[in-house]
């Protein structure tokens, strides 16, 4: 059973920042007038001298973060995913990544689950954008604990990274003792019939789908693919070679995202049937989280249908 306890991934981020900030004076946090939303405000209140609010200026946020990192700080730059990756793309590419600076872009409100604010605030291309930048690591954690541990791990990995978090609370999948392993395709439910790769908000949906399918005799192996770049080629190929079929699930466009990354790998190394659950080349729209998840076919019921189609 998927846990009933719900928590925000953003809170995991804030917890990691406090822990890191306590131990290491090099930790600096920047935001762009969204500290209350991204939860960086907790760091701001504890360490005001190491927090900079750049105002409503996301491009400036990223270039300023680069400069801070050039003075040997470990910089966390936060805003909504749409602004961090879209509006400030050039700053992220040319000033942060090209200089290989220690800026960890930790963006909240990624994906369709932004909800009512609608398309202008729903980042559906951010993983594709960040994944295409050389030197950029891309992590999409699934729950509170995975976010907390991933952020702590990334703080001490050289170079830039992108962490995508969502707006809604999601079921807690791990616990306080969870040992995060960067770059690992984590099998969270073993199965023999097919491999379901999911990231972020879609991990618990995939687990629910797997439970549904098990009742019908279909055993899906569910992998939490928290690290999208670098991709765990070995781990994915190992599972896919056992099951022979793959479904990817992401709260993102199917163009260039996690599904795209997996398809590139399989296409080159192990061509086999693959289906992608995600947004089909469209903008988002306003609605409640539940409505949108169903509308765009991101719910467990739709995942189960896709799996049946592939296995049938």
């Amino acid at each position: 059973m998927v846990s009933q306890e719900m928590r925000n991934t953003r809170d995991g981020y804030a917890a990691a920042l406090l822990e890191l900030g306590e131990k290491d004076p090099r930790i600096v946090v920047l935001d762009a007038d969204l500290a209350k939303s991204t939860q960086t405000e907790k760091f701001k209140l504890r360490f005001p001298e190491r927090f900079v609010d750049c105002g409503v200026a996301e491009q400036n946020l990223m270039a300023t973060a680069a400069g801070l990192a050039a003075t040997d700080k470990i910089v966390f730059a936060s805003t909504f995913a749409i602004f961090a990756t879209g509006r400030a793309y050039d700053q992220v590419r040319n000033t942060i990544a090209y200089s290989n600076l220690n800026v960890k872009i930790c963006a909240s409100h990624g994906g369709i689950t932004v909800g009512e604010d609608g398309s202008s605030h729903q980042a559906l291309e951010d993983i594709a954008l960040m994944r295409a930048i050389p030197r950029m690591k891309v992590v999409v954690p699934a729950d509170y604990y995975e976010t907390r541990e991933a952020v702590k791990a990334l703080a001490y990995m050289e170079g830039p990274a992108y962490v995508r978090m969502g707006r809604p609370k999601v079921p807690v999948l791990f616990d306080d003792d969870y040992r995060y392993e960067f770059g690992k395709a984590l099998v969270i439910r073993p199965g023999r019939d097919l491999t379901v790769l999911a990231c972020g908000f879609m991990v618990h949906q995939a687990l629910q789908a797997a439970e549904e399918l098990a009742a019908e005799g279909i055993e899906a192996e569910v992998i939490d693919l928290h690290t999208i770049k670098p991709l765990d080629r070995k781990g994915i190929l190992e599972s896919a070679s056992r099951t022979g079929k793959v479904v990817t699930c992401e709260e993102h466009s199917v163009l260039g995202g996690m599904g795209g990354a997996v398809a590139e790998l399989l296409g080159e190394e192990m061509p086999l049937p693959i289906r992608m659950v995600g947004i089909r080349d469209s903008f988002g729209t306003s609605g409640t989280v539940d409505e949108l998840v169903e509308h765009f076919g991101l719910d467990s019921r739709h995942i189960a249908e896709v799996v049946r189609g592939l296995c049938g």
Partner: protein
Amino acid sequence: MVIPVRRLEGVVLKEAEERELRNNLEKTAREVRWDIVRMIGLARSGHPGGSLSCADILVCLYFHALNHDPKKPDWRYRDRFVLSKGHAAPALYAVLAKCGYFDREELWHLRRLGSMLQGHPDSLKTPGVEISTGSLGQGLAAACGIALGLRMEDNPARVYALVGDGESQEGGIWEAAMLAGHHCLDNLTAILDNNGMQIDGSCCEVVSLGDMTAKWSAFGWDVKEVDGHDVLDICQALEGAVSASRPRMIIAHTVKGKGVSFMENNVDFHGKAPTPEEMEKALKEIERS
């Protein structure tokens, strides 16, 4: 190579000292111009106009104002320089080589495959380059970040950034201006290479910059105007910035292509290399000057 750290602040230089300083800096600037023209000529591509317009400014920075040690490019207490107008890389490379950050021979490989000297500054490839620039409108913000970082660690080092006038059409310059003004970043000095021209024509024709002194003042900066080819004028403005309680903007009035008659105020040489014949002509002209 030892870089003398000379502070003019509060000191009235004797006439003889002044003359010596002027002669030294002007001689260095001539040599730097010669190198700029030759490296772009040999590369057969690059931006001579904006490199020549800022040559005197860069010489005053690296041979007078900056506290730095080419033998220790990572020295924690070094003053930092960010070339926000990254296309003037040849000027920066010529000055860095002259300081001893790398061998002058490298200059003749500018823009070639495998060269440490990229078309625009790359901090991972070139010793002395603090941060990669080239996409306009970002270097000043990076300089703000450096200024904030130094302030957080009580590091007395200063940050300097060179901004282009055409570059000032980028909104990012004004986002950075606002942030620096808000935080009273008194350890930051920006210099505007106000040569009045950009690729498509004069800045006035393309998109007017208006009253830059009023604009920067309105953003909370301490603004000073100088003749961008008068080395003493530049040095004094740089020194004054040390005691300013706000970020300082030095508006340096310059001439695009300065030092080569047929390049001066000639927009065609913004991003076009001289032909081999033009290069020889330009080098001779600089030697005679």
